[in-house]
């Protein structure tokens, strides 16, 4: 059984990946809201809070450079969470039930949609980066910094996808969509989103210190923030944070998957 099942794994995952990509390729403008929202946040936050760089302790004098990685992660996270909304729709419409009886291991059914989410996330992340660079963000981290930024985006998108999948498998309705999106929103903003940790006050300082996304942001900011140069010291906390998030959220998704159909 396992000998025959193994060769089917990759084609099934690839077919489901292609299907999830078709959802955006065949629907005109499907990626537009997910791309525009982080761009709007990028420009809006820079316009509102741009003067914060004048505070002692701010590592850069370009607020745009500070916010670009945040908006890239936000765009990638929303693209990941959309995986959950799509899965919830498939569950509601009965399509996922039919997939469950297919002769493949259940986790394979999630690989394709999550890969699809990761592929989709590259669009908002890249558009945000290009818009940011066009309106004044810097790129002092060079190629290494860019690699760190994209690793952070892909990892965070996967974590958001697993979170969305867990929510979809738990609630089994598209009405859980706002919960998936707001989970990402909270994770991103309860971090060093607006200011570095030394300038945070009150409860947010403690929460941001414990929030793994703070370290993922540090990983991503190696690309654009002058005070956070590409180095192992700025990289490993982000990678550990991503690994932790993927392990926990992946475990929850597997748990939800095991409960399906019981």
């Amino acid at each position, binding site marked *: 059984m396992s000998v025959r099942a193994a060769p089917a794994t990759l084609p099934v995952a690839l077919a489901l990946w292609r299907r999830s990509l078709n959802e955006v390729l065949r629907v005109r403008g499907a990626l537009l809201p997910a791309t525009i929202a982080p761009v709007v946040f990028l420009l809006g936050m820079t316009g*509102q*809070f741009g003067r914060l760089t004048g505070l002692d302790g701010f590592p850069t004098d370009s607020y745009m450079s500070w916010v670009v990685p945040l908006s890239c992660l936000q765009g990638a996270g929303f693209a990941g969470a959309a995986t959950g909304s799509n899965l919830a729709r498939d569950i509601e419409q009965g399509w996922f039930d039919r997939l469950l009886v297919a002769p493949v291991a259940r986790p394979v059914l999630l690989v394709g949609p999550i890969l699809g989410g990761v592929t989709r996330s590259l669009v908002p992340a890249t558009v945000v980066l290009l818009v940011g660079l066009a309106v004044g963000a810097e790129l002092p981290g060079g190629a290494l910094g860019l690699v760190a930024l994209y690793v952070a985006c892909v990892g965070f998108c996967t974590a958001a996808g697993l979170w969305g999948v867990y929510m979809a498998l738990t609630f089994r309705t598209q009405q859980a969509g706002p919960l998936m999106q707001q989970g990402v929103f909270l994770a991103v903003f309860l971090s060093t989103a607006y200011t570095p940790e030394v300038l945070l006050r009150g409860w947010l300082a403690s929460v941001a210190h414990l929030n793994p996304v703070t370290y993922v942001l540090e990983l991503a900011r190696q690309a654009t923030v002058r005070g956070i140069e590409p180095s192992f010291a700025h990289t490993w906390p982000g990678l550990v944070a991503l690994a932790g998030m993927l392990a926990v959220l992946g475990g929850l998704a597997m748990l939800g998957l095991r409960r399906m159909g019981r």
Partner: protein
Amino acid sequence: MIAAAAREGRVVAALGRRALSVQFRRAQLLMPTFVLPLMLLAVIASGTSAAQGLRGFPDIASYLAFVLPGTIIQGALLAGLTSGTALAADVEFGFFDRLLAAPVRRTSLVIGRQAGTLGLSALQTVFFLAIAYAFGARYPGGVGGMLATVGLAAITAVGIGGIAGAIALRTGSLSLLQSIFPFVFVLLFTAPAFFPRELLVPALRDASVYNPLTYVVEAVRGLLAGDAALGDPWLGLAAATGLAVATTVLATLALRERLRTL
């Protein structure tokens, strides 16, 4: 004449009540309008409070109370957009066509929807004021300032509801209304929603002069603080009322156009 006016009044009240009950019976619709602005308030109030140390920042008693007007106006924007989305759903699923066959004035259908928006925004503003008060915000402007704030926010919500309603009536597309969500934040971020106008980046400061929400948000700030130097309430009222009248006319024209092409 009086009997006809009373009958139309009953129609408007019934439609307004229906618009509100649709919102409250589907809790997921309330998440974006009630919870999202509060989450953003919590994060901004803690994440950017160090800004009080910037030169030129007004001398204020509570930073939370200073950024609260941005949240209130954000709530008003979302209430207006939610109203347009619900109208688009009515158009798409055929309920609006059945209303058109009723022996009532067509304008009452638009005004009834706007009455629901007004009620939703008023409830929302009271909720925001109460939650912020519980977390330490104080309103030296007193009860009068708070009541005027509720009124200004409600009129603003009607203004945004008018735009959203016009789009809903022109297109009848629920998905289009759902996808214009990010543009709401363009209106918010091009006003001094969370920062003093003098401290916005120059391009945004110049643009904010043309955004009516600039005057509304500053008026709310002045009303809650009991300090007209922070914002002129009459200017805010003029901006909100102008917006509401103009967009309600726009929605009525969109309804006429819809009837002409049916």
